């Protein structure tokens, strides 16, 4: 591993900074601003704007008198997500008269690489004149939700969200060296990806910009999509304006996964096949928990679904079930907190527990094994499962069947999933002993294959199994009670 030449003071990207950049750039994508929405993305929680990190780096280098002149070229690769609250470190890895190579890292994990090259700045291009092919600058107030096909033909102009003069309060040193328009232009590129194209379901991966003399009377950038690759959903677009010409690279993320509706589920189950069932579904507000609730309700059973933060989603599922003639209550439940006080308000006496509580599965890690990561998984997949089962059992004298969703990752173990697999494996052992030693307790453990849920969507396409094909046989096994 190369040692850095220089290390600079770190910066915590907190909510105050996040909000300030969002206002300046106009990039209000929910992945950055809304914790409930962000949990349904691959990030699992709000992420820092990549362009914010880039501008902080340029500002720091200017402040430290490393960046003294506008660069001829900036090449940026956004490798991993930065979460709000993360502390970012800047290290110079290589420096000579021609270029500076920089790494931004969080707890030792490189998240962004930047290469700044020096040389001749191109002369000013002719001012961009709005014409038929280039619509007038417009203001997106909500992120656009585009299909990949629509992205193919996207082009236009995008205004700065605020006057470039505002840049001086956020990135004063960068403004001094590269100019307010160039700073505002980079911020506008965040707005381009996060609000326009790909828009709502986007993830920034990189850019290459060459400097030109800016036209300071024009407060917008122009863009044109040149490629939208179907297999990987990768989008490449050229950009021009605000003193830059270049290429922006991003991905069109797969939108949050929708499960079958109650109406659709009725085609899979018999109307009364689960009529004896009274099921508590922890984590029932989305994903496999949501599907399980609908299957049981459609089969005549009574369900109680829990949510940690997704109350709106839980209400929507409840509404669907009630409108179809089913029975459903909702309950807020946080698996990191003690079970007893949270289940006090449960009105049903569960005969079945389906346990889908989970943390974000795919995490940024710095080493093969991270004890803190394992601790978090263990809390949810082992301790909290046991607590939930024992709380329900102690509250009633009825028999309880519990479903414990393990994973094929226990045996296949993809990279970066050691702690997850360890915790699930420990959960399997716990289940086996609970079944052996607890009276009136039955547990169904299944190593589930990879199915398309919010947790499992990825940039690299993978074959997945339809959730209903996996969950319906499991629900039937659970409810057969034989």
């Amino acid at each position, binding site marked *: 591993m190369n040692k850095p030449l220089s290390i600079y003071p770190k910066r915590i990207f907190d909510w105050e900074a996040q909000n300030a950049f969002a206002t300046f750039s106009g990039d209000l994508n929910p992945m950055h601003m809304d914790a409930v929405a962000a949990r349904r993305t691959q990030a699992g929680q709000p992420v820092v704007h990549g362009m914010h990190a880039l501008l902080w780096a340029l500002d720091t280098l200017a402040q430290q008198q490393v960046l003294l002149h506008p660069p001829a070229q900036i090449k940026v*690769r956004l*490798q991993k997500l930065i979460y709000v609250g993360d502390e970012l470190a800047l290290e110079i890895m290589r420096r000579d008269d021609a270029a500076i190579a920089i790494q931004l890292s969080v707890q030792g994990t490189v998240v962004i690489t930047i290469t700044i090259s020096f040389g001749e700045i191109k002369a000013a291009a002719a001012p961009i004149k709005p014409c038929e092919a280039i619509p007038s600058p417009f203001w997106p107030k909500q992120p656009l939700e585009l299909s990949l096909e629509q992205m193919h033909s996207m082009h236009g102009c995008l205004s700065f969200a605020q006057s470039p003069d505002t840049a001086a309060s956020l990135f004063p040193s960068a403004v001094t060296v590269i100019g307010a328009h160039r700073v505002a232009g980079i911020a506008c590129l965040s707005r381009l990806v996060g609000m326009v194209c790909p828009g709502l379901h986007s993830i920034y*991966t990189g850019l290459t910009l060459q400097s030109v003399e800016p036209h300071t009377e024009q407060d917008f950038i122009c863009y044109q999509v040149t490629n939208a*690759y179907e*297999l*990987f959903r*990768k989008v490449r677009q050229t950009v021009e304006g605000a003193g830059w010409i270049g290429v922006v690279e991003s991905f069109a993320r797969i939108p949050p996964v929708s499960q079958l509706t109650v109406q659709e589920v009725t085609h899979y189950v018999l109307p009364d096949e689960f009529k004896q069932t009274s099921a508590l579904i922890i984590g029932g507000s989305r994903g496999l928990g949501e599907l399980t609730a609908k299957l049981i309700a459609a089969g005549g059973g009574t369900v109680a679904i829990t949510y940690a933060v997704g109350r709106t989603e839980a209400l929507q599922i409840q509404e669907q079930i009630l409108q179809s003639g089913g029975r459903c209550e909702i309950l807020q439940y946080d698996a990191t907190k003690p079970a007893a006080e949270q289940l006090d308000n449960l009105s049903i006496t569960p005969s079945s527990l389906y346990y889908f509580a989970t943390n974000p599965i795919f995490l940024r890690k710095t080493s093969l094994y991270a004890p803190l990561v394992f601790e978090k998984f263990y809390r949810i997949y082992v301790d909290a499962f046991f607590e939930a089962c024992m709380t329900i059992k102690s509250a009633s004298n009825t028999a309880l069947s519990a479903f414990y969703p393990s994973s094929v990752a226990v045996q296949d173990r993809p990279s970066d999933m050691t702690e997850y697999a360890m915790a699930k494996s420990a959960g399997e052992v716990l289940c086996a002993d609970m079944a052996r030693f607890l009276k009136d307790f039955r547990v169904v453990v299944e190593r589930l294959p990879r199915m398309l849920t919010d947790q499992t969507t*990825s*940039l*690299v*396409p*993978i*074959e997945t199994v339809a959730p209903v094909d996996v969950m319906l046989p499991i629900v039937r096994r659970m409810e057969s009670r034989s």
Partner: protein
Amino acid sequence: MQQSEIYSKLTEVFHDVFDDPSIVIGPETTAADVSAWDSLNYINLMIAVMAEFNIKFQTSDLEQIHNVGAMVDAIEKKLAAQGQ
């Protein structure tokens, strides 16, 4: 196209995508052998491979590619299907 030619073209693609002219690939080469080979660069690599050889992979093809040898086999099959 002979496998030797595929390897030759593929080596150039690797050099370009990973910005490292010293990379030497063989049938057993995997992501673990190339330091900059992460999920993002994997996607860049596959896009560059498809462009270089003028072929298209499907999701099911990607599942079979665990090392460079499997990648070369997959490229060879695609080219053969095109009559090359």
